[in-house]
């Protein structure tokens, strides 16, 4: 392939010879563009008489030359162009090359901050409205007037009950194990390793069991709620429900929220048990505490109010996870990317809200002396 150009009497002739396939000689192109830009010209002749094979890399060069020629008001002619190449070049210039000006929507920083605040406030109000509608649906469910299918409830129950046992068990066992291991290092300094049993029992039953279950279920079930309902939004199924006059919170949220608030306390109990078991593994196998002694100290540390506080946390987390998952699903956009965004938001917001709610409940329980 050969790209050459020569200038005589304010006329530039550019010649393309041979095969122009995958042409990547940037130096030759730059030299051509440079000469074209810095030489006063009246006409340009693009000669393809000797051209054989060619591809888009050639079209790019020709279009660039024509564009520059038009800009500099240089007359140009195309010599020896194959029909297909000429048609392609014409096509490239037949489309509107001046897209409409893009509206600049950036705001001054103070206005931007205000606008952000207003949008956050609207989002907050929307969330509150969704929670109100969910409570209204729960109310309708208790008086038997909610529109939802028992089978949907059973499917949701199945998904967040026995199918979640394995992951909750494994993670909680490991958390109990870590809690005991870290505690033992500190307690050994004072020679009271035996209190590892109390530490694990109180820690798991009071809060850790519920938090771990909440985080697992948020990533597992909350994300699945957002993705499922978000996909329904993309497929216009939610529009169909709305136009049929069926409340979305009845049909989609109720089965999910009710199954999660039923199963979360049960999974929390399982998590408590597995955590204590993990702690026992460290106590018995690493600290040489006998099983009987470990059990004695665990039993002594177990208090019914700690246990119930943990279960209550589990119940509230179930509500939080279901609300976040369903809210972001229902308010998902209408493309595949939006489903991913909705899923991420559901998980992140449910974890953040769980932590905030935990802080609030800790203060309340502290005030109540529990």
């Amino acid at each position: 392939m050969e790209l050459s150009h020569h200038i005589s009497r304010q006329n530039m002739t550019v010649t393309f010879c041979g095969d122009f396939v995958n042409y990547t000689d940037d130096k030759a192109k730059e030299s051509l563009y440079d000469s074209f830009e810095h030489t006063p010209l009246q006409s340009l002749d693009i000669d393809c008489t000797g051209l054989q094979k060619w591809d888009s890399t050639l079209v790019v060069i020709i279009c660039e030359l024509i564009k520059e020629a038009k800009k500099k008001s240089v007359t140009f002619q195309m010599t020896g162009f194959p029909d297909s190449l000429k048609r392609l070049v014409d096509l490239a210039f037949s489309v509107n090359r001046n897209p409409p000006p893009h509206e600049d929507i950036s705001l001054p920083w103070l206005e931007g901050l205000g606008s952000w605040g207003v949008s956050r406030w609207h989002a907050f109000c929307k969330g509150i409205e969704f929670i109100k509608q969910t409570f209204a649906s729960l109310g309708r469910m208790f008086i038997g007037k909610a529109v939802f299918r028992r089978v949907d409830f059973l499917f949701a129950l199945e998904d967040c009950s026995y199918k979640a046992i394995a992951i909750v068990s494994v993670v909680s066992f490991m958390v109990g194990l870590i809690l005991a291991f870290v505690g033992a290092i500190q307690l050994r300094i004072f020679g009271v390793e035996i209190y590892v049993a109390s530490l694990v029992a109180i820690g798991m039953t009071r809060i850790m069991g519920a938090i771990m279950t909440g985080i697992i279920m948020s990533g597992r079930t909350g994300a699945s709620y957002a993705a499922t309902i978000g996909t329904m939004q993309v497929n216009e199924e939610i529009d169909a429900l709305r136009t049929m006059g069926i409340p979305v919170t009845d049909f989609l949220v109720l089965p999910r929220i009710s199954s999660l608030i039923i199963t979360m306390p049960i999974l929390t109990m399982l998590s408590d048990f597995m955590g204590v078991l993990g702690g026992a593994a460290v106590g018995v196998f690493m600290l040489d505490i006998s099983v009987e002694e470990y059990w004695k100290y665990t039993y002594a540390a177990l208090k019914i109010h700690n246990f119930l506080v943990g279960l209550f946390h589990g119940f509230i987390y179930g509500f939080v996870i279901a609300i976040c998952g369903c809210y972001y699903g229902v308010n998902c956009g209408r493309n595949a990317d939006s489903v991913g965004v909705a899923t991420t938001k559901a998980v992140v917001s449910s974890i953040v809200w769980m932590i905030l709610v935990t802080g609030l409940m800790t203060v309340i329980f502290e005030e109540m002396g529990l």
Partner: protein
Amino acid sequence: MIKTTPQIEVRNLTIGYDDYVLMKDISFTVNKGDIFIVMGGSGCGKSTLLHVLTGLKAPKSGKIFIDGLNFASASPEKKKDLMRHCGILYQSGALFSSMTLAENIALPLQQYTDYSDKVISELVSLKLSLVGLAGFEDFYPSEISGGMKKRAGLARALALDPEILYCDEPSAGLDPISSKLLDDLILDINKSLGTTFVIVTHELASIFAVGNNSVFLDSGSKSIKGYGNPKDLLKNPPNDIVLNFLTRGEKEHG
């Protein structure tokens, strides 16, 4: 002269998103028994207009009267009552994927009527037969083709014997044969049940095959550029925009 009774009256309607206006001050009337086509290029606001007509989206301003009642400003209860008489066929069919076809079609019947399970089951079978899907009661949407999904969606939209049936791009994504069969089905239903159809589409073959009245929405002027029977609009185009659209840009005015 055929007597026409207005069923949907759109008056000075402005629609759009946030601060963006798609259509400004548009007015048209859909008569009872019409197969009314809403046509226009991509992005002109056809689907948004359908969302506004079906109450999924609020208009920026203007009025929509359905059988003389202002739908746009009606209370949610009143809207629900009006929508009881409307069916909608969505672009994707919008069948609930976790339900069988029978369960999908039964859902509006369970929601709005006190029929026994037996009656509902009989009605479901009838609606499926009407759209040529008899025997497909226990199939899930994932087990049937795109054309069949549209038909099943139509059966669900017909479940409550609606007076008005809105269709969003009914022939989108269908092969020419399935598209033609769906057009024939729309004509059959219109003739046999007297259902008013409002169809949003830009498929020329369907527009001429089924439409007896239409509006052409123009995104440039944000207004209606053509109003009337599509065949008449083709014969006597009101302007080049409509002519270009109806002839795929192959003929010029005059």
